[in-house]
């Protein structure tokens, strides 16, 4: 019997006489050339079918490198170009543009990743790396032979934007886009915009009053004709794609209408009390309240969790009676608002670390151990003590104060990263105490003081000159004197090599910042990636620092990583500028990666429509066939393997193209090789990251890229096993992190089914592995390959060919019975 793919391949087999492929092997300076013998790789390429020229160059991405490709396309009449260099995630757009400039359809370019997937991960085995590079080029050439020109669809961009999060980053991004003339929806979860910055007393290194510089921006947002402020609102669902997002926002009832003048008559009569979130729980507020004096909108709200009129029963109407403007409206209900936007800026900010878990520090147990955020409210004139420095236990002014650095940061017990702002925040706070209560003794216990920014070192020097004592060594223990409330710090001054024991009136824990506890919700709604620390990941750490891998979605502020105010504002303006580019252009080209159904072969069974995560396949039995709505199709390819009649194929990731790559890998010594299918967004990027990190792993793996792991067809695995492959890896994004709306559920289902089949036939199941590898998990990718190689070492070539024979027999049997 003939396998599906073979039949298809014969149908589409290109006539090598028509092919004119040019291969360019890049040295990338020493990055590739230092490990891979690029001259030999080019020589090897020259003999491949369809190749008319193969050249090696020092930097193919340079201007001369690109000019060479353009010249060759014109003079040598190349109709396919293969560039063997870095990851296509980096320079595919560069070389596509070069092809296009020379009149060649950009989809006729193919890249072989011989840097991230080869030279950088096999630094110490030059020969093997060169052999692998040859293989990768062969794969690319055979795929290139089957490429077809494509025309990209142009879609309009809605000239409206949504900003999620109303902290300083969200405010800046909203203002920049609104000033450029675009309508902006600013969605804020709490009752007022302002975010963390509004809670701070002063800012470093200039010692500006935080709310004084923020409040004007907040009111500008409030009155800007292009900004629609949605407070007490949360994003509930997002559908659509770049330029055309449909968003559902849940706007919770405020129970107070816009006419509120914030006179405050209502709070005089409200009987219900609750901890004041804005003051970090150090004071109380009423059930009807305004978050803080400068709040925008300047409208009171009712916390229904605390109000006596819960669940529609009006048991108390004192506020209603007290309000002279009659602004209280208990009949308000939560509502879902549907908005259409072209771009989205994510500025959801951060939470602060809760040090309760570090029991040795006594936070939550000893009243005079507080956090930096509590301290900010304590010394703020609008705070619970009206700006008086007092300690919580007896409201006495402390004369000896200690700051403890790196609490919750740089630790495997909490957050492994440096929180970036705590050093300077402590220095600022120490100076504030010095300024207002100069007789106070101030001690800062630290590990390293990181004063890296503009003006930071000056501030640090000033703190030392003004007598703030810096002691290197974090206390291991804090003991409280229950009679006085004083606390004793036990530790070691590492620079003196001496034990210390300091009695303090108050201790301030300089707590770190961490991703919002529910940051996963937005991550899933927008298909974002997160790094290993949980912050949203940028599309490229250096060159696309505010873009995400989801088109039209940009990042601003600390949600992307710990940041101070200046950096948040800078990034917000950058994100707004990126979004403005899209909106001012008004249209965007989407990659031609959609699925297509051949109506002649379609039996209208509807299986494909059932797996499509975007409902982009429509049709019916009555109609006799199904078809793909191209504008809705996102190009995951999940539908293709589902079709039993070979009626669907994915543009630019066709069956024939990928099967040719598999065949090319397995042409020589198949039993020694691992074929790894990796999805573009997570696993392929994870393998790239392994390369960037120079993690070394076995060289017998050959990675084949698909857009989504759900594109991986069981027929490919079958074909590889029949050809005697050593092992097959199918890898994709972690469940629920899939960039195609959980299309990778299909991956898991299909692999599990294949395992069962292997079990039935009696093939070693370990030869097919399923691994979820995110873009940040380079080490995980390397580990998986190492484990697979270790498993492969235990298998003899004989066993592998026996397995292939078993599979072949089972196929024959199957075809006989059907």
């Amino acid at each position, binding site marked *: 019997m003939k396998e599906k793919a073979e039949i298809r391949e014969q149908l589409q087999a290109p006539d090598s006489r028509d092919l004119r492929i040019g291969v360019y092997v890049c040295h990338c300076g020493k990055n590739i050339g230092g490990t891979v013998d690029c001259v030999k790789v080019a020589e090897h390429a020259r003999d491949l079918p369809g190749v008319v020229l193969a050249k090696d160059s020092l930097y193919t991405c340079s201007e001369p490198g690109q000019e060479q490709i353009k010249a060759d396309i014109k003079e040598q009449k190349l109709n396919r170009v293969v560039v063997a260099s870095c990851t296509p995630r980096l320079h595919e757009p560069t070389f596509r543009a070069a092809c296009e400039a020379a009149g060649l359809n950009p989809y006729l370019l193919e890249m072989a990743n011989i840097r991230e997937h080869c030279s950088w991960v096999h630094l110490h085995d030059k020969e093997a790396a060169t052999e692998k590079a040859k293989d990768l080029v062969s794969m690319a050439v055979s795929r290139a032979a089957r490429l077809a020109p494509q025309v990209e669809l142009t879609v309009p961009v809605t000239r409206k934007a949504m900003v999620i999060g109303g902290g300083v980053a969200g405010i800046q991004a909203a203002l920049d886009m609104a000033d450029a003339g675009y309508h902006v929806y600013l969605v804020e979860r709490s009752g007022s915009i302002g975010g963390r910055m509004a809670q701070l007393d002063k800012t470093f290194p200039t010692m500006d009053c935080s709310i004084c510089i923020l409040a004007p921006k907040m009111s500008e947002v409030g009155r800007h004709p292009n900004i629609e402020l949605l407070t007490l609102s949360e994003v509930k669902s997002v559908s659509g794609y770049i330029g055309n997002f449909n968003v559902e926002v849940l706007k919770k009832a405020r129970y107070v209408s816009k006419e509120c003048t914030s006179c405050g008559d209502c709070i005089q009569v409200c009987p219900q009390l609750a901890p004041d979130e804005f003051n970090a729980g150090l004071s109380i507020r009423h059930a009807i309240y305004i978050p803080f004096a400068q709040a925008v909108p300047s409208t009171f709200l009712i916390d229904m969790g605390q109000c006596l009129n819960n669940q529609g029963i009006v048991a108390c109407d004192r506020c209603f009676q007290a309000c002279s403007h009659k602004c209280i409206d208990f009949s308000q209900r939560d509502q879902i608002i549907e908005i259409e936007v072209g771009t989205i800026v994510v500025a959801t900010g951060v939470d602060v670390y809760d040090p309760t878990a570090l029991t040795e520090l006594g936070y939550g147990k000893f009243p005079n151990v507080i956090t930096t955020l509590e301290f900010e409210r304590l010394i703020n004139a609008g705070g619970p003590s009206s700006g008086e420095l007092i300690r919580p236990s007896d409201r006495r002014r402390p004369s000896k104060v200690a700051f403890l650095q790196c609490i919750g940061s740089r630790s495997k017990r909490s957050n492994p990263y440096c929180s970036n702002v705590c050093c300077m925040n402590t220095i600022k706070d120490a100076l504030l105490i010095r300024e207002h209560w100069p007789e106070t003794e101030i001690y800062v216990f630290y590990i390293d003081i990181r004063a890296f920014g503009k003006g930071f070192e000056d501030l640090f020097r000033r703190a030392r000159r003004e007598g703030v004592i810096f002691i290197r*060594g974090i206390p*291991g223990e804090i003991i409280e004197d229950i009679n006085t409330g004083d606390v004793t710090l*036990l*530790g070691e001054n590492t620079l003196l090599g001496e*034990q210390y024991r300091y009695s303090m009136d108050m201790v301030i824990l300089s707590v770190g910042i961490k991703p919002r506890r529910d940051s996963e919700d937005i991550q899933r709604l927008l298909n974002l990636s997160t790094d290993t620390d949980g912050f949203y990941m940028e599309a490229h750490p250096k060159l696309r620092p505010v873009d995400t891998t989801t088109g039209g979605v940009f990042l601003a502020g600390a949600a992307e990583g710990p940041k101070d105010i200046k950096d948040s504002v800078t990034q917000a303006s950058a994100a707004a500028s990126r979004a403005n580019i899209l909106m001012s252009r008004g249209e965007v080209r989407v990659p031609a990666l959609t699925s297509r159904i051949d109506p002649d072969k379609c039996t209208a069974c509807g299986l494909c429509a059932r797996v499509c995560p975007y409902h982009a396949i429509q049709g019916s039995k009555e109609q006799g066939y199904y078809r793909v709505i191209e504008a809705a199709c996102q190009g995951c390819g999940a539908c293709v393997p589902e079709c039993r009649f070979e009626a669907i194929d994915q543009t630019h990731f066709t069956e024939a193209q990928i099967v040719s790559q598999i065949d090319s890998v397995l042409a020589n010594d198949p039993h020694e090789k691992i074929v790894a299918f990796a999805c573009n967004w997570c696993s392929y990027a994870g393998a790239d990251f392994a390369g960037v990190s120079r993690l070394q792993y076995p060289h017998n793996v050959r990675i084949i890229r698909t857009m989504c792991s759900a594109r991986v067809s069981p027929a490919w695995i079958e074909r590889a096993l029949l050809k005697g492959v050593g092992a097959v890896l199918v890898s994709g994004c972690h469940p629920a992190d899939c960039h195609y709306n959980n299309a990778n559920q299909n991956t898991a289902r299909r692999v599990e089914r294949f395992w069962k089949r292997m079990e039935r036939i009696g093939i070693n199941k370990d030869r097919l592995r399923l691994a979820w590898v995110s873009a940040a998990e380079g080490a995980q990718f390397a580990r998986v390959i190492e484990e697979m190689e270790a498993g492969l070492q235990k298998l003899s070539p004989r066993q592998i060919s026996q397995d292939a024979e078993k599979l072949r027999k089972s196929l024959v049997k199957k075809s006989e019975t059907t």
Partner: protein
Amino acid sequence: MTTIKLWKFFAREDLYECYQCARCTGSCPAMEVAPAFGPRETILKCLNVGHEKVVQDERIWLCCTCNVCEDRCPQKIPISDLLVALRNSAARRGNIPGRLVMAIELLAKTGRSMIVHQLDEMRAHHGLAPLPPAPVEEIRAILEKTGLREVVEF
């Protein structure tokens, strides 16, 4: 006496996680009572001057293996494992306090690490039966199996 590599007992890479915050020494009870060789300094010396020097220092025997340092360590460095490994290594090189050697000899001979003559009297006073004889042979076998004989003669 055979020398056994310290790094067989302790993953050397774990030491590189240390950034000298000194929470370990700050919480060390041995440091409270004796000018001992705190965990932070022990790690730093292993890194900077080498464990060869560290295993010669008799102060490593002052650790009471309470494990608090390990509990406080933000980097989850298995400090107690390091201290045990260091002492294993030190003992093999002859750096072992004489009193400890005596206790081992006694343990091998009598099954007890110390002899308290009043013990039986005290037990009788409280109406407890005298202690049963220690299973000396079994204890010796265990001591031998752990390789203690390579370090101390008993």
